[in-house]
Protein backbone atom coordinates (compact mmCIF):
# COMPACT_ATOMS: atom_id res chain seq x y z
CA UNK A 1 0.00 0.00 0.00
CA UNK A 2 2.84 2.32 0.98
CA UNK A 3 4.60 1.65 -2.34
CA UNK A 4 1.48 2.46 -4.33
CA UNK A 5 1.06 5.73 -2.40
CA UNK A 6 4.68 6.73 -2.96
CA UNK A 7 4.51 5.97 -6.68
CA UNK A 8 1.24 7.84 -7.08
CA UNK A 9 2.73 10.78 -5.19
CA UNK A 10 5.81 10.73 -7.43
CA UNK A 11 3.63 10.82 -10.57
CA UNK A 12 1.61 13.72 -9.19
CA UNK A 13 4.70 15.68 -8.14
CA UNK A 14 6.39 15.15 -11.52
CA UNK A 15 3.25 16.35 -13.31
CA UNK A 16 3.15 19.32 -10.95
CA UNK A 17 6.76 20.18 -11.83
CA UNK A 18 5.68 20.33 -15.48
CA UNK A 19 2.51 22.32 -14.89
CA UNK A 20 4.21 24.98 -12.76
CA UNK A 21 6.19 26.18 -15.80
CA UNK A 22 3.24 27.56 -17.82
CA UNK A 23 1.74 28.85 -14.57
CA UNK A 24 4.87 30.96 -13.98
CA UNK A 25 4.74 32.09 -17.62
CA UNK A 26 1.13 33.21 -17.13
CA UNK A 27 1.77 35.19 -13.93
CA UNK A 28 0.69 38.84 -14.18
CA UNK A 29 3.02 41.84 -14.40
CA UNK A 30 5.57 39.75 -16.33
CA UNK A 31 6.92 38.20 -13.14
CA UNK A 32 8.42 35.44 -15.27
CA UNK A 33 10.82 37.89 -16.93
CA UNK A 34 12.40 39.14 -13.70
CA UNK A 35 16.14 38.49 -13.93
CA UNK A 36 18.03 36.73 -11.16
CA UNK A 37 21.77 36.31 -11.65
CA UNK A 38 21.38 36.91 -15.39
CA UNK A 39 18.61 34.41 -16.05
CA UNK A 40 14.87 35.11 -15.97
CA UNK A 41 12.69 33.43 -13.34
CA UNK A 42 10.98 31.35 -16.04
CA UNK A 43 14.24 30.06 -17.52
CA UNK A 44 15.69 29.40 -14.06
CA UNK A 45 12.71 27.25 -13.27
CA UNK A 46 12.34 25.46 -16.63
CA UNK A 47 16.01 25.05 -17.40
CA UNK A 48 17.57 24.34 -14.02
CA UNK A 49 15.22 24.00 -11.06
CA UNK A 50 12.53 21.78 -12.63
CA UNK A 51 14.85 19.07 -14.05
CA UNK A 52 16.84 18.94 -10.79
CA UNK A 53 13.58 18.76 -8.80
CA UNK A 54 12.41 15.95 -11.08
CA UNK A 55 15.61 14.03 -10.41
CA UNK A 56 15.18 14.48 -6.65
CA UNK A 57 11.53 13.42 -6.76
CA UNK A 58 12.31 10.36 -8.84
CA UNK A 59 15.08 9.26 -6.50
CA UNK A 60 13.38 10.14 -3.22
CA UNK A 61 9.84 8.94 -3.92
CA UNK A 62 10.42 5.82 -5.95
CA UNK A 63 11.30 2.90 -3.70
CA UNK A 64 13.19 -0.16 -4.85
CA UNK A 65 10.93 -2.99 -6.01
CA UNK A 66 10.29 -5.72 -3.42
CA UNK A 67 12.73 -8.64 -3.65
CA UNK A 68 11.41 -11.59 -5.68
CA UNK A 69 9.60 -14.22 -3.61
CA UNK A 70 11.48 -17.43 -3.00
CA UNK A 71 9.70 -20.60 -4.06
CA UNK A 72 8.46 -22.52 -1.02
Amino acid at each position, binding site marked *: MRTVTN*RGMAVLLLLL*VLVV*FPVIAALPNQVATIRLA*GLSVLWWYGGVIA*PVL*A*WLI*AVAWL*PDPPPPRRPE
Partner: protein
Amino acid sequence: MTSAAHILAVWLTPVLWLSMPSLILERGPDGLWTGLALVLVPLIALAAGAPEPAAGAREPAFPVVILLLTVGVLFWANMILAGDVAAWLGAPRWHGIAITAASGCLLTTWRGAWRIIPALLLAAVLAVNAPLPEVARVAGVGPLGAWARVATLAAFHFPSTSSWVTAGRDLRIIHGGGPIVFDEEHRITAPAGGRLFARTPDGGRARDLEWTLTPGQSVTFRAGDRLQSNSAPRLRFESDKRVPGSPPSGVAWAMGRPPDWPRHAGLLVTVLFGALALCRAGAPVRPSRSTVALVAGGGLVAFLWAQGWAVYSLLASPDLFLGGITPERLLALPALGDGHPARPTLQALLLAGGLAGFLASSIALRERLVALDRTGGGEIGRDVSLWTSVFAIAGLASLWHLDCWSLALLALGTAGSSVGATALGSAAAPPGVATFAGLVGLAVFVALAVACQVRGGAEGLLGAVQAYPALAAVPAAAVVLRISRWAVS
Protein backbone atom coordinates in the same frame (compact mmCIF):
# COMPACT_ATOMS: atom_id res chain seq x y z
CA MET B 1 23.14 0.56 -15.37
CA THR B 2 22.18 -1.59 -18.36
CA SER B 3 18.49 -1.23 -17.65
CA ALA B 4 18.76 2.56 -17.35
CA ALA B 5 20.82 2.75 -20.56
CA HIS B 6 18.14 0.74 -22.36
CA ILE B 7 15.36 3.05 -21.19
CA LEU B 8 17.35 6.15 -22.15
CA ALA B 9 18.21 4.67 -25.54
CA VAL B 10 14.57 3.76 -26.18
CA TRP B 11 13.26 7.17 -25.27
CA LEU B 12 16.00 9.60 -26.26
CA THR B 13 16.23 8.51 -29.86
CA PRO B 14 18.27 11.17 -31.75
CA VAL B 15 15.27 12.73 -33.45
CA LEU B 16 13.85 13.55 -30.00
CA TRP B 17 16.94 14.77 -28.16
CA LEU B 18 18.39 16.60 -31.15
CA SER B 19 15.06 18.36 -31.62
CA MET B 20 15.32 19.82 -28.11
CA PRO B 21 17.83 22.62 -28.95
CA SER B 22 16.03 23.51 -32.17
CA LEU B 23 12.69 23.72 -30.35
CA ILE B 24 14.27 25.92 -27.65
CA LEU B 25 15.62 28.23 -30.34
CA GLU B 26 12.48 28.31 -32.41
CA ARG B 27 9.91 28.67 -29.64
CA GLY B 28 11.83 30.12 -26.67
CA PRO B 29 10.07 29.18 -23.38
CA ASP B 30 7.57 26.96 -25.23
CA GLY B 31 10.47 24.92 -26.59
CA LEU B 32 12.09 24.83 -23.16
CA TRP B 33 8.88 23.39 -21.74
CA THR B 34 8.75 20.81 -24.54
CA GLY B 35 12.31 19.75 -23.68
CA LEU B 36 11.39 19.55 -20.00
CA ALA B 37 8.37 17.39 -20.84
CA LEU B 38 10.54 15.07 -22.95
CA VAL B 39 12.92 14.61 -20.02
CA LEU B 40 10.23 14.13 -17.38
CA VAL B 41 7.75 11.81 -19.11
CA PRO B 42 9.92 8.67 -18.97
CA LEU B 43 10.23 9.24 -15.21
CA ILE B 44 6.45 9.51 -14.94
CA ALA B 45 6.11 6.33 -17.00
CA LEU B 46 8.55 4.52 -14.70
CA ALA B 47 6.88 5.90 -11.59
CA ALA B 48 3.48 4.76 -12.82
CA GLY B 49 4.83 1.20 -13.05
CA ALA B 50 3.54 -1.44 -15.46
CA PRO B 51 0.39 -3.42 -14.74
CA GLU B 52 0.88 -7.01 -13.61
CA PRO B 53 -0.06 -9.37 -16.45
CA ALA B 54 -2.85 -11.73 -15.50
CA ALA B 55 -1.56 -15.23 -14.72
CA GLY B 56 -1.93 -17.54 -17.70
CA ALA B 57 -3.31 -14.78 -19.92
CA ARG B 58 -2.76 -15.20 -23.65
CA GLU B 59 -0.31 -12.68 -25.05
CA PRO B 60 -1.98 -10.34 -27.57
CA ALA B 61 -0.34 -9.55 -30.91
CA PHE B 62 -1.76 -6.04 -31.02
CA PRO B 63 0.90 -4.27 -28.88
CA VAL B 64 3.65 -6.05 -30.83
CA VAL B 65 2.24 -4.85 -34.17
CA ILE B 66 1.77 -1.29 -32.89
CA LEU B 67 5.25 -1.19 -31.40
CA LEU B 68 6.75 -2.50 -34.65
CA LEU B 69 4.92 0.25 -36.54
CA THR B 70 6.07 2.87 -34.03
CA VAL B 71 9.68 1.71 -34.21
CA GLY B 72 9.53 1.81 -38.03
CA VAL B 73 8.22 5.38 -38.03
CA LEU B 74 10.86 6.45 -35.47
CA PHE B 75 13.57 4.94 -37.71
CA TRP B 76 12.04 6.84 -40.62
CA ALA B 77 12.15 10.14 -38.67
CA ASN B 78 15.76 9.51 -37.65
CA MET B 79 16.77 8.78 -41.23
CA ILE B 80 15.10 11.96 -42.48
CA LEU B 81 17.27 13.81 -39.97
CA ALA B 82 20.37 11.92 -41.17
CA GLY B 83 19.53 12.89 -44.77
CA ASP B 84 19.02 16.52 -43.78
CA VAL B 85 22.37 16.61 -41.98
CA ALA B 86 24.09 15.21 -45.08
CA ALA B 87 22.36 17.79 -47.31
CA TRP B 88 23.29 20.65 -44.99
CA LEU B 89 26.93 19.58 -45.06
CA GLY B 90 26.88 19.60 -48.86
CA ALA B 91 26.53 15.84 -49.54
CA PRO B 92 23.56 14.18 -51.25
CA ARG B 93 20.74 13.32 -48.83
CA TRP B 94 20.91 9.64 -49.59
CA HIS B 95 24.47 9.43 -48.24
CA GLY B 96 23.29 10.20 -44.72
CA ILE B 97 20.26 7.92 -45.07
CA ALA B 98 22.29 5.02 -46.49
CA ILE B 99 25.00 5.19 -43.78
CA THR B 100 22.39 5.27 -41.01
CA ALA B 101 20.23 2.50 -42.48
CA ALA B 102 23.17 0.24 -43.34
CA SER B 103 24.81 0.52 -39.92
CA GLY B 104 21.50 -0.02 -38.12
CA CYS B 105 20.70 -2.98 -40.34
CA LEU B 106 24.14 -4.50 -39.82
CA LEU B 107 23.62 -4.61 -36.06
CA THR B 108 20.41 -6.63 -36.43
CA THR B 109 22.53 -9.62 -37.48
CA TRP B 110 24.37 -9.56 -34.13
CA ARG B 111 22.34 -11.24 -31.41
CA GLY B 112 24.44 -9.83 -28.59
CA ALA B 113 24.16 -6.24 -29.81
CA TRP B 114 22.16 -5.24 -26.69
CA ARG B 115 25.37 -5.52 -24.66
CA ILE B 116 26.89 -2.48 -26.37
CA ILE B 117 23.94 -0.13 -25.71
CA PRO B 118 25.56 1.49 -22.61
CA ALA B 119 28.87 1.92 -24.48
CA LEU B 120 27.14 3.44 -27.51
CA LEU B 121 25.11 5.75 -25.32
CA LEU B 122 28.20 6.85 -23.39
CA ALA B 123 30.04 7.46 -26.67
CA ALA B 124 27.11 9.55 -27.92
CA VAL B 125 26.99 11.64 -24.73
CA LEU B 126 30.76 12.26 -24.74
CA ALA B 127 30.87 13.03 -28.48
CA VAL B 128 28.05 15.55 -28.52
CA ASN B 129 29.23 17.24 -25.32
CA ALA B 130 32.85 17.48 -26.45
CA PRO B 131 32.39 20.63 -28.59
CA LEU B 132 30.63 22.59 -25.81
CA PRO B 133 33.79 23.68 -23.90
CA GLU B 134 35.38 24.90 -27.14
CA VAL B 135 32.19 26.69 -28.14
CA ALA B 136 32.10 28.38 -24.71
CA ARG B 137 35.80 29.31 -25.00
CA VAL B 138 35.27 30.89 -28.42
CA ALA B 139 32.21 32.78 -27.17
CA GLY B 140 34.23 33.95 -24.15
CA VAL B 141 31.25 33.69 -21.85
CA GLY B 142 29.64 31.04 -19.64
CA PRO B 143 26.20 29.56 -20.35
CA LEU B 144 24.35 32.01 -18.09
CA GLY B 145 26.19 34.96 -19.61
CA ALA B 146 25.48 33.65 -23.12
CA TRP B 147 21.78 33.42 -22.35
CA ALA B 148 21.80 36.94 -20.89
CA ARG B 149 23.50 38.28 -24.02
CA VAL B 150 20.99 36.61 -26.34
CA ALA B 151 18.06 37.72 -24.20
CA THR B 152 19.16 41.37 -24.39
CA LEU B 153 19.78 41.57 -28.14
CA ALA B 154 17.91 44.46 -29.73
CA ALA B 155 17.35 42.34 -32.86
CA PHE B 156 18.77 39.27 -34.61
CA HIS B 157 21.09 40.50 -37.38
CA PHE B 158 23.11 38.65 -40.03
CA PRO B 159 26.71 38.56 -38.75
CA SER B 160 29.33 39.61 -41.30
CA THR B 161 30.98 36.17 -41.03
CA SER B 162 27.77 34.25 -41.84
CA SER B 163 28.00 32.01 -44.88
CA TRP B 164 24.69 33.53 -46.01
CA VAL B 165 26.55 36.86 -46.22
CA THR B 166 30.02 35.85 -47.44
CA ALA B 167 29.52 33.20 -50.12
CA GLY B 168 25.75 32.81 -50.11
CA ARG B 169 23.80 29.57 -49.78
CA ASP B 170 21.07 27.64 -51.52
CA LEU B 171 17.62 28.37 -50.05
CA ARG B 172 16.40 24.93 -51.06
CA ILE B 173 18.41 23.23 -48.29
CA ILE B 174 16.30 25.02 -45.68
CA HIS B 175 13.57 22.65 -44.60
CA GLY B 176 12.16 24.62 -41.71
CA GLY B 177 9.16 25.71 -43.75
CA GLY B 178 9.25 29.19 -42.25
CA PRO B 179 8.41 32.01 -44.67
CA ILE B 180 11.23 34.36 -45.59
CA VAL B 181 9.41 37.64 -45.04
CA PHE B 182 11.51 40.76 -44.76
CA ASP B 183 11.04 43.19 -41.88
CA GLU B 184 13.13 45.93 -43.46
CA GLU B 185 14.70 46.87 -46.78
CA HIS B 186 17.18 44.14 -47.72
CA ARG B 187 19.37 43.69 -50.81
CA ILE B 188 19.67 40.11 -52.06
CA THR B 189 22.46 39.12 -54.46
CA ALA B 190 22.61 36.05 -56.67
CA PRO B 191 26.38 35.38 -57.04
CA ALA B 192 25.79 32.81 -59.78
CA GLY B 193 22.70 34.45 -61.23
CA GLY B 194 19.39 32.67 -61.69
CA ARG B 195 15.69 33.30 -61.25
CA LEU B 196 14.21 34.91 -58.19
CA PHE B 197 10.58 34.57 -57.13
CA ALA B 198 8.86 36.82 -54.63
CA ARG B 199 5.43 37.82 -53.41
CA THR B 200 4.82 41.41 -52.49
CA PRO B 201 1.80 43.03 -50.81
CA ASP B 202 0.13 45.36 -53.26
CA GLY B 203 -2.73 47.18 -51.58
CA GLY B 204 -5.00 44.46 -50.22
CA ARG B 205 -3.71 41.80 -52.63
CA ALA B 206 -0.49 39.86 -53.02
CA ARG B 207 1.40 40.19 -56.30
CA ASP B 208 3.86 37.58 -57.60
CA LEU B 209 7.14 38.87 -58.98
CA GLU B 210 9.91 37.15 -60.90
CA TRP B 211 13.38 38.29 -61.93
CA THR B 212 16.10 36.66 -64.01
CA LEU B 213 19.39 37.84 -62.55
CA THR B 214 22.84 37.80 -64.13
CA PRO B 215 25.75 36.66 -61.90
CA GLY B 216 26.31 39.20 -59.13
CA GLN B 217 23.11 41.12 -59.79
CA SER B 218 21.00 42.21 -56.82
CA VAL B 219 17.36 42.89 -55.99
CA THR B 220 16.18 45.03 -53.11
CA PHE B 221 13.23 43.75 -51.10
CA ARG B 222 10.99 45.98 -49.03
CA ALA B 223 9.44 45.29 -45.64
CA GLY B 224 6.57 42.80 -46.06
CA ASP B 225 8.00 41.22 -49.25
CA ARG B 226 8.26 37.46 -49.22
CA LEU B 227 11.07 35.55 -50.92
CA GLN B 228 10.02 32.15 -52.34
CA SER B 229 12.22 29.18 -51.46
CA ASN B 230 12.37 27.96 -55.07
CA SER B 231 14.46 31.00 -56.00
CA ALA B 232 17.99 31.14 -57.46
CA PRO B 233 20.43 28.33 -56.56
CA ARG B 234 22.62 30.56 -54.38
CA LEU B 235 21.71 33.79 -52.64
CA ARG B 236 23.65 36.27 -50.54
CA PHE B 237 22.08 38.37 -47.81
CA GLU B 238 23.23 41.72 -46.42
CA SER B 239 25.34 41.92 -43.31
CA ASP B 240 23.87 43.60 -40.19
CA LYS B 241 20.32 43.40 -41.52
CA ARG B 242 17.58 41.69 -39.54
CA VAL B 243 17.19 37.98 -40.18
CA PRO B 244 13.79 37.40 -41.83
CA GLY B 245 11.58 35.26 -39.60
CA SER B 246 13.51 36.01 -36.40
CA PRO B 247 11.72 37.20 -33.22
CA PRO B 248 11.53 41.00 -32.87
CA SER B 249 14.27 41.00 -30.19
CA GLY B 250 16.14 38.86 -27.71
CA VAL B 251 13.76 40.00 -24.98
CA ALA B 252 10.78 38.82 -27.05
CA TRP B 253 12.50 35.46 -27.67
CA ALA B 254 13.25 34.92 -23.97
CA MET B 255 9.75 35.95 -22.92
CA GLY B 256 7.89 33.89 -25.54
CA ARG B 257 4.17 33.93 -26.10
CA PRO B 258 1.50 33.52 -23.39
CA PRO B 259 1.01 29.80 -22.67
CA ASP B 260 -1.41 27.99 -24.99
CA TRP B 261 -2.92 25.58 -22.45
CA PRO B 262 -4.77 23.25 -24.87
CA ARG B 263 -1.65 22.76 -26.99
CA HIS B 264 0.50 22.20 -23.92
CA ALA B 265 -1.99 19.54 -22.82
CA GLY B 266 -1.95 17.99 -26.31
CA LEU B 267 1.82 17.75 -26.40
CA LEU B 268 1.97 16.39 -22.85
CA VAL B 269 -0.63 13.68 -23.53
CA THR B 270 1.15 12.68 -26.76
CA VAL B 271 4.62 12.33 -25.26
CA LEU B 272 3.45 10.97 -21.90
CA PHE B 273 1.36 8.14 -23.33
CA GLY B 274 3.97 7.55 -26.02
CA ALA B 275 6.50 7.10 -23.20
CA LEU B 276 4.11 4.78 -21.35
CA ALA B 277 3.89 2.64 -24.48
CA LEU B 278 7.59 2.68 -25.36
CA CYS B 279 9.36 2.68 -21.99
CA ARG B 280 7.14 0.06 -20.36
CA ALA B 281 6.83 -2.38 -23.24
CA GLY B 282 8.25 -5.65 -21.95
CA ALA B 283 10.04 -3.78 -19.14
CA PRO B 284 10.17 -4.91 -15.50
CA VAL B 285 7.02 -4.02 -13.62
CA ARG B 286 8.94 -1.82 -11.18
CA PRO B 287 12.42 -0.53 -11.96
CA SER B 288 14.96 -0.12 -9.16
CA ARG B 289 15.76 3.22 -7.58
CA SER B 290 19.23 3.28 -9.12
CA THR B 291 17.71 2.72 -12.59
CA VAL B 292 15.34 5.64 -12.11
CA ALA B 293 18.18 7.83 -10.76
CA LEU B 294 20.31 7.06 -13.83
CA VAL B 295 17.43 7.69 -16.26
CA ALA B 296 16.70 11.01 -14.53
CA GLY B 297 20.42 11.91 -14.59
CA GLY B 298 20.72 11.03 -18.27
CA GLY B 299 17.71 13.16 -19.10
CA LEU B 300 19.14 16.04 -17.07
CA VAL B 301 22.44 15.88 -18.99
CA ALA B 302 20.61 15.80 -22.35
CA PHE B 303 18.43 18.75 -21.34
CA LEU B 304 21.30 20.90 -20.08
CA TRP B 305 23.26 20.08 -23.23
CA ALA B 306 20.29 21.11 -25.38
CA GLN B 307 20.02 24.46 -23.61
CA GLY B 308 23.73 25.19 -23.81
CA TRP B 309 23.87 24.16 -27.45
CA ALA B 310 20.84 26.29 -28.33
CA VAL B 311 22.05 29.43 -26.60
CA TYR B 312 25.66 29.31 -27.88
CA SER B 313 24.45 28.54 -31.41
CA LEU B 314 22.08 31.50 -31.38
CA LEU B 315 24.67 33.83 -29.90
CA ALA B 316 27.15 33.07 -32.68
CA SER B 317 24.73 32.54 -35.50
CA PRO B 318 21.43 34.47 -35.39
CA ASP B 319 20.95 33.57 -39.07
CA LEU B 320 19.67 30.20 -37.81
CA PHE B 321 16.23 31.81 -37.85
CA LEU B 322 16.30 32.17 -41.64
CA GLY B 323 13.53 29.94 -43.01
CA GLY B 324 12.87 28.13 -39.72
CA ILE B 325 15.13 26.24 -37.34
CA THR B 326 15.74 22.55 -37.92
CA PRO B 327 18.02 20.14 -35.97
CA GLU B 328 20.48 19.58 -38.82
CA ARG B 329 21.44 23.25 -38.83
CA LEU B 330 22.50 22.97 -35.19
CA LEU B 331 24.49 19.81 -35.86
CA ALA B 332 26.55 21.73 -38.41
CA LEU B 333 28.23 23.49 -35.47
CA PRO B 334 27.11 27.04 -36.19
CA ALA B 335 28.72 28.30 -32.97
CA LEU B 336 32.19 27.97 -34.51
CA GLY B 337 33.17 29.97 -37.56
CA ASP B 338 34.00 28.31 -40.89
CA GLY B 339 37.72 28.95 -40.44
CA HIS B 340 38.04 27.52 -36.91
CA PRO B 341 40.81 24.86 -36.95
CA ALA B 342 38.97 22.42 -34.66
CA ARG B 343 35.67 22.69 -36.53
CA PRO B 344 36.04 19.64 -38.83
CA THR B 345 37.10 17.42 -35.91
CA LEU B 346 34.31 18.59 -33.64
CA GLN B 347 31.78 18.33 -36.45
CA ALA B 348 32.90 14.75 -37.08
CA LEU B 349 32.54 14.05 -33.34
CA LEU B 350 28.99 15.41 -33.39
CA LEU B 351 28.07 13.26 -36.36
CA ALA B 352 29.65 10.20 -34.74
CA GLY B 353 27.73 10.96 -31.53
CA GLY B 354 24.47 11.23 -33.46
CA LEU B 355 25.13 7.92 -35.23
CA ALA B 356 26.08 6.19 -31.96
CA GLY B 357 22.85 7.51 -30.43
CA PHE B 358 20.84 6.15 -33.34
CA LEU B 359 22.50 2.74 -33.16
CA ALA B 360 21.90 2.51 -29.40
CA SER B 361 18.31 3.56 -29.94
CA SER B 362 17.70 1.11 -32.80
CA ILE B 363 19.04 -1.82 -30.75
CA ALA B 364 17.09 -0.80 -27.63
CA LEU B 365 13.84 -0.38 -29.58
CA ARG B 366 14.30 -3.82 -31.14
CA GLU B 367 14.98 -5.28 -27.70
CA ARG B 368 11.67 -3.84 -26.51
CA LEU B 369 9.94 -5.92 -29.18
CA VAL B 370 11.98 -8.96 -28.15
CA ALA B 371 10.79 -8.54 -24.55
CA LEU B 372 7.19 -8.05 -25.64
CA ASP B 373 7.13 -11.09 -27.92
CA ARG B 374 7.13 -13.75 -25.20
CA THR B 375 5.16 -16.28 -27.26
CA GLY B 376 7.58 -16.15 -30.17
CA GLY B 377 10.62 -16.25 -27.85
CA GLY B 378 11.65 -12.78 -29.00
CA GLU B 379 12.42 -13.95 -32.52
CA ILE B 380 10.71 -10.86 -33.96
CA GLY B 381 13.64 -8.73 -32.78
CA ARG B 382 16.19 -10.98 -34.45
CA ASP B 383 14.46 -11.62 -37.74
CA VAL B 384 17.07 -10.29 -40.15
CA SER B 385 14.77 -10.23 -43.19
CA LEU B 386 12.07 -8.35 -41.23
CA TRP B 387 14.49 -5.70 -39.97
CA THR B 388 16.23 -5.39 -43.31
CA SER B 389 12.79 -4.64 -44.78
CA VAL B 390 12.02 -2.13 -41.99
CA PHE B 391 15.32 -0.28 -42.53
CA ALA B 392 14.92 -0.41 -46.33
CA ILE B 393 11.35 0.92 -46.26
CA ALA B 394 12.23 3.61 -43.70
CA GLY B 395 15.30 4.56 -45.75
CA LEU B 396 13.37 4.81 -49.01
CA ALA B 397 10.55 6.74 -47.33
CA SER B 398 13.03 9.23 -45.86
CA LEU B 399 14.08 10.28 -49.36
CA TRP B 400 10.69 12.00 -49.35
CA HIS B 401 11.24 14.99 -47.17
CA LEU B 402 9.03 15.49 -44.11
CA ASP B 403 9.41 17.28 -40.80
CA CYS B 404 11.14 14.71 -38.56
CA TRP B 405 9.78 16.19 -35.31
CA SER B 406 6.17 15.94 -36.53
CA LEU B 407 6.82 12.39 -37.67
CA ALA B 408 8.25 11.44 -34.26
CA LEU B 409 5.16 12.95 -32.60
CA LEU B 410 2.98 10.93 -34.99
CA ALA B 411 4.78 7.74 -33.92
CA LEU B 412 4.42 8.58 -30.22
CA GLY B 413 0.77 9.55 -30.68
CA THR B 414 0.01 6.27 -32.44
CA ALA B 415 1.71 4.21 -29.73
CA GLY B 416 0.19 6.29 -26.94
CA SER B 417 -3.38 6.19 -28.27
CA SER B 418 -3.42 2.45 -28.87
CA VAL B 419 -1.05 0.86 -26.33
CA GLY B 420 -0.14 3.57 -23.80
CA ALA B 421 -3.76 4.44 -23.06
CA THR B 422 -4.67 0.85 -22.20
CA ALA B 423 -1.64 0.22 -19.97
CA LEU B 424 -2.89 2.24 -17.01
CA GLY B 425 -3.97 0.65 -13.76
CA SER B 426 -2.39 -1.85 -11.42
CA ALA B 427 -3.67 -4.96 -13.22
CA ALA B 428 -3.50 -5.62 -16.96
CA ALA B 429 -6.82 -5.66 -18.76
CA PRO B 430 -7.88 -8.94 -20.37
CA PRO B 431 -6.11 -9.11 -23.78
CA GLY B 432 -9.29 -8.91 -25.87
CA VAL B 433 -10.51 -5.88 -23.93
CA ALA B 434 -7.18 -4.06 -24.17
CA THR B 435 -6.96 -4.78 -27.90
CA PHE B 436 -10.51 -3.52 -28.51
CA ALA B 437 -9.87 -0.32 -26.55
CA GLY B 438 -6.52 0.11 -28.31
CA LEU B 439 -8.16 -0.27 -31.71
CA VAL B 440 -10.72 2.39 -30.80
CA GLY B 441 -7.92 4.73 -29.68
CA LEU B 442 -6.01 4.05 -32.89
CA ALA B 443 -9.09 4.65 -35.05
CA VAL B 444 -9.82 7.97 -33.34
CA PHE B 445 -6.16 9.00 -33.66
CA VAL B 446 -5.98 8.15 -37.38
CA ALA B 447 -9.34 9.82 -38.12
CA LEU B 448 -8.30 13.04 -36.38
CA ALA B 449 -4.82 13.03 -37.95
CA VAL B 450 -6.39 12.71 -41.43
CA ALA B 451 -9.01 15.35 -40.61
CA CYS B 452 -6.22 17.71 -39.53
CA GLN B 453 -4.52 17.30 -42.91
CA VAL B 454 -7.78 18.00 -44.74
CA ARG B 455 -8.99 20.86 -42.59
CA GLY B 456 -6.41 22.33 -40.19
CA GLY B 457 -5.79 25.77 -38.79
CA ALA B 458 -8.37 25.85 -35.98
CA GLU B 459 -7.67 27.66 -32.72
CA GLY B 460 -8.21 26.75 -29.07
CA LEU B 461 -9.10 23.23 -27.99
CA LEU B 462 -10.14 22.16 -31.51
CA GLY B 463 -6.79 23.36 -32.86
CA ALA B 464 -4.97 21.44 -30.12
CA VAL B 465 -6.91 18.25 -30.96
CA GLN B 466 -6.06 18.72 -34.63
CA ALA B 467 -2.40 19.27 -33.85
CA TYR B 468 -2.23 16.49 -31.23
CA PRO B 469 -4.92 13.89 -32.02
CA ALA B 470 -3.83 11.82 -29.00
CA LEU B 471 -5.55 14.47 -26.85
CA ALA B 472 -8.90 12.95 -27.90
CA ALA B 473 -7.77 9.42 -28.81
CA VAL B 474 -6.24 8.59 -25.41
CA PRO B 475 -9.38 9.47 -23.38
CA ALA B 476 -11.50 7.62 -25.96
CA ALA B 477 -9.42 4.46 -25.53
CA ALA B 478 -9.39 4.82 -21.73
CA VAL B 479 -13.20 5.19 -21.59
CA VAL B 480 -13.74 2.19 -23.88
CA LEU B 481 -11.32 0.16 -21.75
CA ARG B 482 -13.19 1.02 -18.57
CA ILE B 483 -16.60 0.25 -20.04
CA SER B 484 -15.37 -3.02 -21.59
CA ARG B 485 -13.74 -4.09 -18.32
CA TRP B 486 -16.96 -3.42 -16.48
CA ALA B 487 -18.96 -5.30 -19.14
CA VAL B 488 -16.82 -8.45 -19.05
CA SER B 489 -16.44 -8.58 -15.24
